[in-house]
């Protein structure tokens, strides 16, 4: 995939520390790579070269005079276009926010900025994170770096493709129902969805507030651990952020082992209709490798799996219908300006009709419907109760195992346009969605490929707040797996 492989985050830190490279060199190689491949991949919506190079020069000056902000000072990072970076566009890949410039920093961005990270640009996504393929971007198409005819997965498809395509050392994504793990799996990179509340959501444009969580997309498990150590922790601006101390994810990896670790394989996950044989083979092979390393493989049961998608699409769309109501063309964003909007009502209706894409409209309608008078109890309240049962499913399973192993998606990256109906597309999220409903942590780590070379991810899950256990298991697997 091209001649100039980027260093991992860990390698970049060492190289900067040892003076083997400079921020300018790192940024130039990333920008050069973007020049070469992004016309084919389409990972980025926006890159501000001059700003990046100016920031790099400033970082190099700091390092020269000993005032560097830390080991990461001068390392470029790609950011999904739904996290606020002051002075940069914040579009969520939607026409309705095409010209919106954020006047503030998200908390994660503030934390990364204080470490000296350089914000390379904005990566493409499904509009407002609604989708699993990036085909719902209102602005641009993104291709899977491994096969241009296929989707990169979504909704953090731009971030996954940028890392996989060598266009970014690390990237940030967000995961509401699998939006980090799925594209990580399709593109062959590591993607972590932290425990709900671990990472501040302040500055993440909400899709479904009770499910959204920011996480890293990286080449290695260690890089994800480094990122988590920076972005995790309580934020007074996010009432849902957890008070428990974070950090120590990277340092715990040196002692990583799976010896005696009980790895649960949920029976129901392997009975899913349409599970691709190569995916099953890769996941089962990964389990065998872990077993050989001393892990104990146990069968567990998550009987509520079959209801997860239904509950998810009620809860997520209901929350989204309110979250997206603010896009009305009054304070910012697209306002119908062709003179037809004589009345306020018409302005609302036309601005929103023109600003939102098909899938977003569909979900707003579904979400509005399930909350509307007479339907609340039958849909929303019932879905919330099923959510409780899903949470309990996991609580029970985690009494029998320490981590859970499963596929990320029933099949590898599919062809663009292949999942024609919304329902078919929703069903592809079966393995990832219940994790968000339960609020636990999970990740995708590459575990093989199809015969034609399409990456396949292994999903690993751990109880809430057990990111360290999760990363230790993943790092151990990554080591025994070897290079793919």
């Amino acid at each position, binding site marked *: 995939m091209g001649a100039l492989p980027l260093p991992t985050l860990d390698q970049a830190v060492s190289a900067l520390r040892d003076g083997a490279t400079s921020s300018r060199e790192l940024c130039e190689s990333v920008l050069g790579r973007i020049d070469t491949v992004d016309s084919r991949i389409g990972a980025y919506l926006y890159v501000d070269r001059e700003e990046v190079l100016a920031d790099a020069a400033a970082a190099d000056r700091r390092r020269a005079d000993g005032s560097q902000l830390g080991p990461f000072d001068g390392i470029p990072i790609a950011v999904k276009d739904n996290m606020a970076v002051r002075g940069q566009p914040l579009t969520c890949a939607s026409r309705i926010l095409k010209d919106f410039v954020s006047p503030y920093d998200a908390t994660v961005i503030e934390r990364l900025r204080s470490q000296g990270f350089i914000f390379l640009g904005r990566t493409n996504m499904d509009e407002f994170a609604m989708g699993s393929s990036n085909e719902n971007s209102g602005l641009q198409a993104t291709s899977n770096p491994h096969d241009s005819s296929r989707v990169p997965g979504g909704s953090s498809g731009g971030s996954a493709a940028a890392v996989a395509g060598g266009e970014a050392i690390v990237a940030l994504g967000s995961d509401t129902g699998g939006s980090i793990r799925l594209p990580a799996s399709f593109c062959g990179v590591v993607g972590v969805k932290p425990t709900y509340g671990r990472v501040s959501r302040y500055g993440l444009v909400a899709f479904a507030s009770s499910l959204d969580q920011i996480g890293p997309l990286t080449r290695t498990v260690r890089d994800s651990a480094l990122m988590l150590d920076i972005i995790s922790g309580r934020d007074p601006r996010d009432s849902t952020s957890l008070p428990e101390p974070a950090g120590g994810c990277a340092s715990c990896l040196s002692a990583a082992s799976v010896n005696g670790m009980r790895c649960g394989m949920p029976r129901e996950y392997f009975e899913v209709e349409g599970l691709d044989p190569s995916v099953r083979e890769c996941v089962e092979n990964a389990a065998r490798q872990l077993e050989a390393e001393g892990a104990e493989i146990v069968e567990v049961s998550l009987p*509520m799996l079959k209801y997860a998608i239904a509950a998810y699409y009620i809860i997520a769309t209901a929350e989204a219908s309110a979250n997206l109501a603010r896009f009305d063309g009054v304070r910012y964003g697209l306002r119908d300006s062709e003179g037809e909007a004589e009345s306020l009502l018409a302005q609302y209706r036309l601005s929103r009709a023109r600003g939102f894409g098909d899938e977003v409209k569909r979900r707003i309608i579904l979400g509005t419907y399930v909350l509307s008078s007479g339907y609340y109890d039958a849909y929303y309240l019932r879905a919330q109760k099923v959510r*409780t049962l899903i949470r309990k499913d996991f609580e029970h399973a985690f009494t029998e195992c320490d981590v859970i192993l499963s596929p990320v998606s029933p099949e590898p990256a599919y062809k663009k346009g292949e999942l024609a109906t919304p329902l078919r597309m929703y069903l592809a999220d079966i393995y990832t969605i219940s994790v968000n409903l339960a609020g636990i942590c999970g990740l995708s780590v590459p575990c093989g490929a199809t015969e034609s070379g399409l990456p396949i991810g292994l999903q690993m899950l751990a109880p809430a707040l057990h990111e360290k256990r999760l990363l230790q298991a993943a790092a151990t697997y990554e080591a025994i797996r070897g290079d793919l």
Partner: protein
Amino acid sequence: MGKGPDTSHIDVRYVADLARLELSDDEIKRYEEQLGDVLHYVDQLGEVDVSGVDPTAHAMPLTNVMRDDRESPGIQRDDVLSNAPASLEGGLIRVPAVIDGEEGA
């Protein structure tokens, strides 16, 4: 979903009015079909025995998260107005006339 309201049909026009979305007749027809499928799928939640189960509104069980009553800096009016599609002299954001009774508190 068993007993309860009729969930076999979604009145997209009514819902789109609530959500302030201008839809063409074609779109309404398409969404009705597509979401009809989705709702049919979702109806399987009716099988689950949820009696005595508490609803989950938040993924994590926190309570009493509050802040102190202390001022923090806001944003400049220039930033407010530069993002607004239309504004008035004096710093107000401009919208088509708000008609009493159109909706509202």
